[in-house]
């Protein structure tokens, strides 16, 4: 009989749904620490067995690289690199900053290094290590200077635009700014040709509102991926000439300059962890999807 057949079919589909649900609920009951261990181990495996997925270049990264190389940078131009990141974000920001430093040095630009984090000196030391060959050809005080730590939010960035010496009367090592050869004639925003801000916070935004907006200073963001979401519309609007989005941006820049480094090495680990996360989202939502489809039947 048709109705009896329908009753049997509905019992079967109910049993099937129940077994699926119990499997899913078993999965849901797994201690979260198991997931943490899976993630921690999964992050380490690609370092021991590299995979090497190919990387394509995003247009924002290409624009950034084009903006710091070739015709866009003249010899003797003065640029600021803002270490707006601490040690915890080295893996995210430092590879991109390394490439930008190398690129600017090779174009003959002079660089002022500053930073609003307490460990800015550590970051500067690490940069000297990752750009060892380029720093070896440059002279401190003539080709680059490390002015050191600053803080004060938007006020200090605005004041830097007015008078650099009022924020940095001396460099990090105590040398009065007037005694530093490359700072001769470099007094305010009009003497700076470009700013690269690498941020975990919003100093890039402060440079945008206090430097790029009123004075049209060339500005690019070389920061964390989280800032990428807010900074990509700014790049599209022309406020930034380029944006590097986190470690992925760093890997793309390494590819562009032809010197693969830490970001490229980390990409395999990133791939594994992201794949695991997407799988976790899909598996976690299987129950919801099954319920909705079961309801429609």
């Amino acid at each position, binding site marked *: 009989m048709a109705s009896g057949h329908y009753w049997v079919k509905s019992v079967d589909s109910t049993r099937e749904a129940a077994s699926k649900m119990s499997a899913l609920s078993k999965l*849901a009951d797994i201690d*979260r620490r198991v*997931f*943490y261990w899976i*993630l921690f181990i999964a992050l380490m495996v690609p370092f021991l067995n590299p995979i090497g*997925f*190919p990387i*394509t270049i*995003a247009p*924002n990264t290409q624009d950034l690289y084009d903006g710091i190389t070739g015709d866009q940078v003249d010899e003797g131009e003065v640029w600021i690199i803002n270490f707006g990141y*601490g*040690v*915890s*974000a080295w893996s995210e920001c430092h590879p991109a900053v390394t490439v930008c430093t190398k690129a600017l040095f090779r174009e003959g630009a002079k660089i002022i290094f500053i930073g609003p984090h307490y*460990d800015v*000196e*550590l970051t500067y030391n690490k940069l000297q290590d990752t750009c060892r060959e380029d720093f070896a050809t440059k002279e401190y005080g003539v080709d680059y200077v490390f002015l050191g730590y600053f*803080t*004060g*939010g938007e*006020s*200090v960035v*605005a*004041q830097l635009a*007015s*008078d650099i010496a*009022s*924020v940095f009367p001396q460099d990090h*090592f*105590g040398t009065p700014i007037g005694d530093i050869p490359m700072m001769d004639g470099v007094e305010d925003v009009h003497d700076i040709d470009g700013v690269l801000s690498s941020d975990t916070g919003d100093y890039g935004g402060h440079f945008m509102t206090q430097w790029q907006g*009123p004075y049209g200073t060339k500005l690019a963001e070389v920061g964390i991926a989280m800032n*990428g*979401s*807010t900074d*990509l*519309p*700014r790049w*599209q609007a022309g406020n930034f000439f380029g944006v590097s*989005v986190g470690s*992925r941006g760093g*890997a793309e820049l390494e590819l562009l300059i032809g010197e693969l480094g830490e970001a490229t090495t980390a*990409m*395999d680990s*990133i*791939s*594994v*962890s*992201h*794949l*695991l*996360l*997407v799988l*976790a*989202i*899909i*598996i*976690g*939502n299987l129950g*919801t*999807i099954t319920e909705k489809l079961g309801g429609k039947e």
Partner: protein
Amino acid sequence: MSNVLKQEAVYAVTGIVTILMLVEYFFFADTQIWAETIRTWAVIIYNISLGLGAARLLISHSARVSKKGRDWQFSGLLLGLFAIMLLTGFAGYIMTGVQTNNGIYNWMFNYIYTPLGATLYPITGFYIFSAAYRAFRARNIDAALMLIAGCFVMLKNAPVGEAIWIGFATIGNWFQFTGQVPGMRTFAIVGALGLIAYGFRALLGKERGFYAGGGE
């Protein structure tokens, strides 16, 4: 009189400083020395005020140690390390002008502060992973759109996405360069309008939440 000093004069300072910053920008081509002075003062005050949080923490942990409160041993450890770091740092600063020139300070900075700082912030990565499995549910169209956009951007950011299927990168790029723009640009525009409105309210003395004691 005391009410004027405690309230009206304070709001007047806020209003005057705000107006001076705006006047400098909209009425003068070059930066003005009086505005530069105010900004320098603001930066110095900002630097000094960062010690306030440190002072509060030191007071609370010292009280915990003296009264042998909860976890007082850890507070003692905190204060001990603080004292060593402070004394060695000041010794380095006074003798050479740079605090990291002191060997002990430098060692603790490199091998205690740095690894701890570098380790504490990424801990949220673990929680994102467990949340992805347990909490991120596409219960309605809003959540589903959010998760779909998130997954495609993740697979675009990770090179493996493109290796599995080129479409992940193509669609992920669309979400990154077009899909998210209305939302993110809205936050920027609405944030800017809110800042302007809020700033004018502070200028007129209507916003009093910043001041200790609120509107008293």
